[in-house]
């Protein structure tokens, strides 16, 4: 039997946390790109495009992330795509994040006074330029706090990818626990690592929120 010292446990957990961070970052970046697309559809003037985005958001907010991951993991191979846990994890979290981010930003876009759109069109800007130069900067500025708040939620959500076999923090901790039989210590450290990742962001979101209230 291999002996695990406390340092072995912590070192392996910290190494695994790199994958948690990488997955969070990739999913947040992907979620931003897809989320912008969904946002454009959600605020489109065409009724059916708007509807589609509404259903898309409702679907991801109304079903468990775990089910979304399972469907991708078992569903995509049926379409003939070879899929690894990493692919399913990135894809699942990206799609889920896009729905949440689009909904957050929509709130920001709707909070921009209509006069801003009017002013944009009276300057002769076309729709996309109005969005890019006038509406979106204000919408993003207003929704900075909830966006950071969602990033915290996303980091915590990466824990679920352990269930479809992606080797991140929780999956590694399960393996270490099975070898050391010290669940109290192992899961305690795992919780601390997540806390160390999330708490500064939570704090930052709070500061942004207070700053927004002052304006």
């Amino acid at each position, binding site marked *: 039997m291999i002996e695990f010292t406390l340092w072995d446990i912590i070192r392996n957990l910290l190494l695994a946390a790199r994958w948690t961070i990488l997955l969070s970052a990739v999913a947040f970046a992907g979620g931003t790109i897809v989320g912008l697309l969904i946002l454009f559809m959600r605020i489109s003037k065409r009724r059916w495009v708007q509807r589609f985005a509404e259903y898309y958001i409702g679907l991801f907010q109304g079903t468990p992330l*775990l*089910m979304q991951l399972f469907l991708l993991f078992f569903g995509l191979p049926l379409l003939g795509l070879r899929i690894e846990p990493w692919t399913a994890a990135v894809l699942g979290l990206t799609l889920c994040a896009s729905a949440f981010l689009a909904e957050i930003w929509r709130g920001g876009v709707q909070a921009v006074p209509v006069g801003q759109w009017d002013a944009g069109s009276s300057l002769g800007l076309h729709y996309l330029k109005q969005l890019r130069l006038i509406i979106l900067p204000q919408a993003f500025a207003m929704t900075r706090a909830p966006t950071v708040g969602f990033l915290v939620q996303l980091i*915590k959500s990466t824990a679920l990818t352990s269930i479809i076999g992606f080797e991140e923090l929780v999956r590694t901790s399960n393996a270490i626990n099975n070898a050391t039989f010290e669940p109290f210590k192992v899961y305690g450290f795992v919780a601390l690592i997540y806390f160390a990742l999330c708490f500064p962001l939570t704090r930052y979101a709070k500061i942004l929120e207070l700053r927004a209230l002052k304006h």
Partner: protein
Amino acid sequence: MGYVLDFGWLGDAVSLIASGAAMTLFLIAVSAVAGIVLSVLGAAGRRSRHAWLRNAIAGYVELIRNTPFLVQLFFIFFGLPSLGIRLDPVVAAILAMTLNMTAYTTEIVGAGLDAVPKGQREAALALGLRPRLVFIKIVLPQALKVIYPALTSQIIIMMLESAVVSQIAVRELTYEADLLQARTFRAFETYFVVTLVYLAMSIGLRRLLVASGNRFLSGGVS
């Protein structure tokens, strides 16, 4: 190639899916009620005169809100037995869900309490009501009305998150899905059906909560 979707197994699976869904609803019902009661206490404690109580509750809220539910669940189910606390999976699931729920709803209830104008409290005190009665009869009902939509959303989020308690072998909806797909080898179809069941449950639960809120909050306040 040429995979054909097959839902032929569904007929025999309906009762399993139904019992799993019932378990999921049971878990969320118990932890929502317990969580909301506890969070009223938590929110009141967070506004108490005693600094240690305020700090303890703030610490608890931050700890829960900044760690994944799955890790909390594993800590309670696998970690606590080393302290001599051995829990049945269902009890561990309810405990984890309640603790998680309470951290979020404490913040929500607290925001609601702060939203009630001070004059309401002062008026009630001036009428000679005892402070406890003022809280229960005057401040809390008004606060609940303000935060009801947020509480509804939180309950639904928790119900969806409860899918992970399948990992400690609680026989709820996801666990039944895992068993079914292992038996039928129809993983995609099984999870597809169960995802739709979850969607229906979250839509249904939201409607139910909104309807009962309209009914009981508008009459219940005065």
